[in-house]
């Protein structure tokens, strides 16, 4: 069907959140497939048949070489049967076609370590990273996030603040130098920042759970179509996911769903 938004969630090798990400896509109105990497490597499934790629949270290869490092290496080098292109090449074609990519947590780490985010002015050298939390430990904690209203990010259009859990040990966002940070800010690519109770970006633990520079929790590229974030939007798609749903009046629909709905709406308007 021509008008169907087709979303793909990649699974396997330690990806853990594929089911809830797929469910969020489905609720947002997309037709979604969970596809094991093996299906891509055998060539039976091609990324380019989809509009919306989801790289979900998890621990690719156990994050043994540093978060998402071994996973990035696989995408860069593993051959796709019957094709000269690697998966990374398929991914570049996908991006070049103006399609949407959202990487959450381990998926964000993967995008950053492959140099696909922020890729300022098309530079696909890695310029940012996500490293060990200041605290030195994994933490599961809900965080207030403030959204840059001037960001080109298509996923956060119309949103001003969000509340999602972070669940990571390596979520501290760092740039290769001040220039990169400055460019991110100038171009409004630092979409999400950890915020205090007043909604202001903060460096104070635990509101900023990992010590990220400039409180950065999520970034996009200049097209706004590639988006990565450490907090988990798919973990808040219904009010019962909220840690205080038994004591607060909340809308039925969780805030996380809004990001997926924005993505689907954008695809319907721009890509179909």
């Amino acid at each position, binding site marked *: 069907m021509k008008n169907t938004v087709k979303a793909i969630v990649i*699974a*396997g*090798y*330690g*990806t*853990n*959140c594929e*089911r*809830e990400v797929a*469910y969020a896509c489905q609720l947002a109105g997309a037709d979604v497939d969970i596809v094991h990497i*093996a299906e891509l490597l*055998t060539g039976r499934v091609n990324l380019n048949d989809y509009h919306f790629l989801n790289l979900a*949270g*998890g*621990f690719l*290869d*156990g*994050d*043994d*070489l*540093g978060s998402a*490092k*071994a996973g*990035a*290496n*696989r995408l*860069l*080098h*593993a051959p796709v049967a019957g094709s000269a292109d690697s998966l990374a090449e398929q991914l570049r074609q996908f991006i070049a076609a103006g399609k949407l990519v959202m990487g959450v947590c381990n998926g964000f780490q993967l995008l950053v*370590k492959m140099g696909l985010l922020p890729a300022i002015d098309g530079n696909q*050298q*890695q310029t*940012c*990273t996500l*490293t*060990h*939390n*200041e*605290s*030195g*430990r*994994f*933490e*599961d*904690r809900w965080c207030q996030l403030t959204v840059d209203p001037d960001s080109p990010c298509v996923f956060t259009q119309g949103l001003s603040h969000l509340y999602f*859990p972070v*669940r990571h040990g390596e979520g*501290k966002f*760092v740039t*290769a130098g001040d220039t990169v940070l400055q460019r991110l800010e100038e171009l409004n690519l630092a979409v999400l920042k950890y915020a205090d109770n007043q909604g202001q970006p903060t460096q104070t633990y635990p509101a900023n759970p990992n*010590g990220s520079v400039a409180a950065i929790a999520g970034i996009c590229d200049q097209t706004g179509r590639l988006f990565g974030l450490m907090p*988990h939007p*798919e*973990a808040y798609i219904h009010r*019962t*996911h909220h*840690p*205080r749903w*038994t*004591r607060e009046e909340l809308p039925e629909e969780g805030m996380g769903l809004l990001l997926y709905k924005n993505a689907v709406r954008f695809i319907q308007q721009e890509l179909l």
Partner: protein
Amino acid sequence: MAWRIVVGLKKHVKDARGEKIRREINGHLNLSLTSVRTLDVYTVDAALSLDEVTQAAAGPFSDPVIQEYAVNQPLANSFDILIEVGYRPGVTDNTGRTAKEAIQYMTGRQFTAGEAVYTSTQYLLSGLTDKSVAEKIAKDFLANGLIQYWTILSDDELDPMVGVPVTVPKVVSDAAPAVRTLSLQISDDELLDISRMGMLALNLEEMHKIKEHISDPQIVAERQKVGLGAELTDVELEALAQTWSEHCKHKIFSARIEYEDETGQVQQIDSLFKTYIVGATSKVRENLGADDYCLSVFKDNAGVIEFDKDWSIVFKVETHNSPSALDPYGGALTGIVGVNRDGMGTGMGARLIFNTDVFCFASPFLEKELPPRLLHPRRIFEGVVEGVEHGGNKSGIPTINGSLVFDDRFAGKPLVYCGTAALMPRLLDGKPCHEKKVLVGDHIVMTGGRIGKDGIHGATFSSEELHEGSPVTAVQIGDPITQRKMFDFLIIARDRGLYNSITDNGAGGLSSSVGEMAEDTGGFELNLDRAPLKYPGLQPWEILISEAQERMTLAVPEDKLDAFIALAKEMDVEATDLGIFTDSGYFHCLYEGKTVSYLGMDFVHEGVPQLVIPAKWQPKELSEPDFAQPADLGQELRQLLSRLNICSKESVVRRYDHEVQAGTVIKPLLGVTNDGPSDAAVFRPLLDSFAGVVVSHGICPSYSDIDTYHMMACAIDEGLRNYVAVGGDIEHVAGLDNFCWCDPVESSKTPDGRYKAAQLVRANQALYDYCVAYGVPLISGKDSMKNDYQIGDNKISIPPTVLFSVIGKIADARKAVSMDVKRPGDLVYLLGKTADELGGSEYYAQHKELGRQVPHVDAQVALQRYRTLNKAQQQGIIASCHDLSDGGLGVALAESAFAGGFGMEIDLTRVDKDSDIREDKLLFSESQSRLLVTIHPQHKEDFERLFVNQSCRCIGQVIAASDLVIRGYQAQNLVQQPLQQLKQAWQAPLREM
């Protein structure tokens, strides 16, 4: 010559890992260092070019933004002492394995046999010059000598050209595989020597039984036909030792017990397991009749009950105590990934939905000197918590319920309980998914990890106390990712109908898994030489009983074999055809075509002689303490909140991902600032349904010092009380018992065996009585019976401990209730009467007393209360509900108040109580089955009508002010405490752990 890549952070980047280690060295060893920095080392023992190695170093092994690397040169500089820690040969090195795969992807070439990557870590310490102190840091904190080696160099000893001398921890073995045979026509002493020296844990009677069997001329004649004779092979002896081990055969729970009670009456109990555990479940199921929701109990790796019309719930809880005592991290990690395999290996396989964990430790702040071979409880705490963290988080399974229980006797052996629930379809291709059957001719296929020497004798080792000779090979490190890949594969294989049966390889390895599966057909032929090995040099018996992790055994029909193997290959999972299931009647193993074991299946499985255990119950002479009511009960309350058994466990809970899979709707931490202590968890396993699984537990070893009967009753009640507090349906609930005992068999080592055995009997009697009274079927369980430490005269026995886990459902998770008070003006009710029952309580322990009056449970009264509470929850009139347990009413009030962020005014005269109970005892009594409820005033009438004729008293109200005010019998302010202070007292003790 191996390549050596060192990776470290660039100069300006803060080393959070190093800083954490510096803090911990300070905490553990009280040593203050100025800095600790860390470097990762990859020793690449493979034929690669410098270009390739550099590409690996610059690519997958390092992060260009924050890291730098060196190849065959040191990176370490400006330090005082360097400690490098790496794994000993044969120890699982997950990062090394991933590094190897990364190089293979990069070069497009596979490593040849024997090529590998080994990882190690360099710690650069500053502010320390004494190498003997560094040795202590390495030994007592950074490394575990059982599995790791270390090298210590001062800065002037580091060669600037070469760096730390290269260590390649490759397993080198020139042992050719061989099968030894043993004549058992020897003396009793010699028979026992064989058992002891071989770490077989077989007693004399069992050795005799084997000797007798192998001496039977008819059996010898059968054996001669396959090339064996009147001597037993080592493969056979090892297989028998594993199968007959306490760990696998539960000989104590199956024993005949001669129980004498305090009146001198003697009762013969033929198997505690059959009499009380299976007995209780049969009775409950009979009472449930057509409403019976049990699907598979006691016969599989986990129990199975109905969830809804399309799905069923699988649940299992295991212990991994002995391995965790030796290597807390590896032991706990294998504990959690091991119990995950139980869920996957039940019926035709199930999708794992959550984990639970309960740990019993000595105080991490213990200051006394520990006897040899025991690790400090703080180290055990850290290691176990981290092991379960890695096991659960990396596997994508939320950890949603748990506890930490402290008693200094757990220094002798920590208890590490790991649970897993899973979800399976009621029907798979039209057949019940919780059933499976191997057919004659099915292939024996092993999937997942490879076999090494790791975990050899795990089953027999954990069937003994921890002693000087406890084997190093019992220690293993789990590999969550290999297992995750295998599970992804198995669920697809299941749904495609590619196998007939599945089970996990846990204790006893292939010997157990194949042996048990073959009971369906009555025999098997297993080719040990076909099994994939981690490294060469394993003997056939080692292949058979290795407990190397991440392996499942399947029965794959001939016509599905190719499809099964092909799917595995595609999904990067190893699967190997090892033989076939037969109806020969024999436990038949071959090595390179030659028979190496040929034992009758009946003898292997039924041959073990029944133990006879004497038990004599004599209640201890105990008395109630004699101390006056303290003047400041506010201070008493704060002290109680700071006790290790009561205080906040937030620092641990946050390290576990408790929300992955997006199902956790009553989370472990909740309340106005997301940090109050939940009673139980509610999990929605299906994203498009509001039906919830509810899980909780009860555990109260401190009552065992008075009477294990009441300890068991209280644990059951606590589990159920927590379960109903959040809204769990009391009519659809199951229990699971995990006994952890000290050796109850009388011997020279255990002179008080009769008493310990009687304690065991009494706990089982309570288990039967209360499960039947509550209508709760037991669906699975496990026992660990040798939780003692003994070296020389120094013996430490744990207090008898039972974890009673509870699982059930809530039809609509939106009706679930949390424990935090919701708004000022709400009325506070206490359900249940308070008696003078402080024996074994936290309050008495705070006053260094045990007492005598342990809480008693009245199941009839409690059951009526729980049912009524369920009704009130269904009507939506409960604002909050919190169970009363350790620390009684005082602690429950404080927790509910500070979790909700509002104060309370409470009047103790309104509490339903024993008439003459003292105020402090009323406040801190641990009488069971009580719940603290708040409701909005508009629901007062409806609520009170529901509880008419039950113990239900309005004892105060929620107030806007942030103080907890408790008025005493003379209307005086007995307690007036700002919530902030109470919360501070509750959060402080373990905040930094």
